[in-house]
């Protein structure tokens, strides 16, 4: 049996179409309603409430906690202030990305790390000789993500404290109906949003409080289909979809470095020694072979391909997660790994790996589309990421 998250008693009651899916051994909702559309729009117009409890969470404590993390991840953890959150990948010795997640500095010597994959072994392997305690708190910590323009107003009401001073990628503590919570201004939607971390035993208190005060603000429990659309618009990577973990890759070609994923900004090459540093330095010097970019499929071109067979353009109603070839002048120069029709932007967008020379915004290329069982190519162009970046995200 798959496990149920601490919020399952509430989420199960909302489920209209038995649309569950797996996430890290748990069942979570793909969509609560029969269509995910309203759940998606809540992210951009009101507030969507996601159960993100299946994330792996680790507490790393002790005098050398920062040193351990600095040894593992590419960002500079020593420079991370108390109350700050870092998004970061971590790599193997070849500089190939193993996973990506967040590191929150809860106090001088305590960090919480989130990961998509189990990481306890990797943390321990690299902790030799360091004064740290590593604890897997995945099961005892529940997490909710409240995303959208009304997220702040709702959360302020629920925890009774102002949050306007809480900056992007910072965290604070508070109480919801007497239950202690950590609130981080983070998320996976590219919108104004917060994640609430709470003891699993009292998780329902937070859910109930948020839903109750949020109803007048349009709070809408939302599933993974809505989240997937939002993260495409935000240009955020998904492990095992947009890249393969170096720990899972079967052949070398399946792996990627942070530079190849356009995550160069997360690589602090000059900090103290970290795993993959030498390889990444060398790669930085010669330049990465690949870039991770946004792609917009040209509407007129797509419309023409469908008109050729007498159809109006067919668009994906949910985000897709397959590998789709990209071409320039008949030569394959890359592949898209995620894509969707953006209901907000009215654009057909995708996230893609392209050979470095084709990574500049504006570069014209073609994407394979299957029109009535036949492979065709639609005009497309490289676009800067994120596709959607509202001011409220950081304001």
């Amino acid at each position: 049996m798959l496990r149920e998250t601490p919020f399952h008693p509430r989420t199960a009651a909302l489920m209209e179409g038995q649309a569950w899916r797996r996430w890290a051994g748990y069942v979570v909702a793909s969509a609560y309603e029969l269509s995910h559309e309203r759940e998606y729009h809540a992210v951009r117009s009101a507030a969507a409430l996601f159960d993100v409890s299946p994330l792996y969470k680790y507490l790393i404590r002790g005098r050398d906690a920062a040193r351990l993390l600095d040894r593992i991840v590419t960002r500079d953890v020593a420079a991370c202030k108390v109350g700050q959150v870092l998004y970061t990948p971590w790599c193997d010795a070849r500089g190939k990305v193993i996973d990506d997640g967040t590191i929150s500095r809860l106090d001088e010597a305590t960090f919480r790390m989130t990961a998509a994959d189990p990481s306890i072994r990797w943390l321990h392997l690299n902790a030799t000789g360091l004064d740290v305690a590593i604890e897997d708190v995945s099961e005892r910590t529940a997490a909710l993500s409240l995303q959208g323009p009304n997220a702040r107003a709702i959360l302020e009401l629920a925890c009774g404290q102002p949050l306007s001073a809480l900056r992007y990628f910072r965290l604070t503590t508070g109480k919801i109906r007497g239950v202690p919570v950590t609130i981080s201004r983070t998320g996976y939607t590219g919108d104004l949003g917060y994640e609430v971390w709470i003891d699993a035993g009292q998780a329902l208190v937070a859910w109930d409080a948020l839903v109750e005060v949020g109803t007048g603000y349009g709070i809408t429990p939302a599933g993974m289909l809505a989240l997937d659309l939002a993260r495409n618009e935000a240009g955020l990577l998904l492990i095992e979809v947009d890249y393969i973990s170096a720990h899972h890759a079967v052949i070398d070609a399946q792996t990627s470095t942070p530079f190849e994923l356009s995550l160069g900004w997360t690589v602090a090459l000059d900090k103290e020694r970290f795993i993959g540093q030498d390889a990444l330095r060398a790669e930085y010097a010669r330049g990465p072979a690949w870039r991770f970019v946004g792609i917009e499929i040209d509407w007129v071109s797509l419309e023409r391909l469908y008109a050729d067979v007498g159809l109006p353009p067919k668009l994906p109603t949910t985000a897709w997660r397959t590998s789709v070839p990209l071409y320039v002048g008949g030569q394959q120069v890359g592949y898209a790994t995620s894509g969707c029709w953006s209901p907000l932007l009215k654009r057909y967008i995708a996230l893609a790996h392209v050979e470095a020379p084709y990574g500049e915004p504006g570069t014209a290329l073609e994407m394979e589309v299957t029109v009535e069982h036949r492979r065709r190519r639609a005009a497309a162009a490289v676009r800067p990421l994120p596709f959607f970046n509202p001011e409220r995200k950081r304001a």
Partner: protein
Amino acid sequence: MAQTWDAIIIGGGHNGLVTAAYLARAGRKVLVLERRYRVGGAAVSEEIYPGFKFSVFAYVVRLLRPEIIRDLDLPRHGLEILPLESTITPMDNGDYLGAWGDPDKTRREISRHSPRDAEAMVQFGRLMHHMAQAVKPILGMIPPDPTSLSPRDLLGLLKLGRHFRSLGPEHVHALYKLMTMSSADYLDEWYETDVLKATKSASGIIGTFLGPRSPGTAYVLLHHYMGEIDGSFRAWGFAKGGTGAISESIAGAARRFGAEIRTDAPVAHVLLKRGRATGVVLENGDELRARIVVSSLDPHRTFLQLVGESELPDDFAADILRYKFRGSSGKVNLALDELPNFTCLPGVGPHLRGAISISPSVDYLEHAYDDAKYGEFSRHPYMDVIIPSMIDPHMAPPGKHVLSIFVQYAPYNLTGGWTDAKREAFGDTVVDTLSHYAPNLKQAILHRQVITPADIERITGLTEGNIFQGELALQQLFFLRPAPRWAKYNTPIRRLYQCGSGTHPGGGIMGASGRLAALRILGDGR
């Protein structure tokens, strides 16, 4: 120093703003002149009662062209179209008919009334899909004049001819029927459930001075299905922040491309020199010069008021005088302390996030029209009701609501004319009728705004309060909109263009007229 512009756009409604944005995007120096204190025309959101925002006039967006959203990058300027996916029609026997976003749910619901109709719906939908696809390209083209021999017109006609040939005889025949029949007759060929036919035909009468049994109304059904083709890319629904947010986003785009927008700047008339437009004179006497003048106002305002009948060729003036407006609808906006509780579906539910149609039978609608034919507002009007605050909570304070009621028929030419007393009586009729289905409505009302066609005309300038800048009747469409030979956004006055809903294709918040006008102007090298 006298400033000159490449183009002056008269009127800051959504079409005027679209034209302005496209011209500015092409590098033209553009000035928009709006009479009111804010842009938007009939697509405005206003806080009529503290804390409650109303889409005062137009309240949904059905066919805003996705290419406009993309070309002008409107989401960056705040545009978001939210789904409005269900329609319920309360019935007099206490039951209701529902159409939901989910096809299985809808089929099961219609089966409850008639299993035969539930099956017909699929076939009907397929045919209408084909019809809408047949008509859709026409919406996106500058109408060619079938009597002209100019290469541009011939090319357009050739394209159109090829297009119709590609449809195949079956669809051409169906299209002909759709163009000539009444919506009630047309739907009779398909369905047996009265309330279903009534609700579907209601979409064929919106904004016209016609009833469901008037020939020509079947065609307007298509507009609804065109929304459904676009359904996959959801170009219709409810604009977050109300319809004013659409206007504001287009204005934002226009400004970003460099256009200047002046509000409180009413234009008195178009400046003419030897039959050529050279600028405008504001009501305050200021003269502003431009290489071209583009009017987004309706054909009466543009030609009879801003230009003057004496400046127009006789036959053209006669055509414009004959052009029909006949506003037939009004609007009631309510601020509510609590949600309306419908007897047929009590409590809060997803039905309150969609449309509520007061169209219990075809006879009900036809009777409503009967009143209007003889100069009265309907004693039992057709109403299209939505609760914007259920879709976008920003429209009202938390826990409170706004209710938008589109009402038909309310004839512009009311016997004895519209007075304050008549307006209130009209408002009472609307609230009484709706209270019949939701008895708690009256006690929940915090504020009531009643808008008659005369108010629409007074506030927005739309002649006779017609929401489409002239009826969407077949004799006023395509190469006849607004007048034969002048349906391509140009006018008999050189350097004066038109870009409002009174030009092809017109109607609703589409922006297609504004965009096509801009393409024509740029095509002329202006």
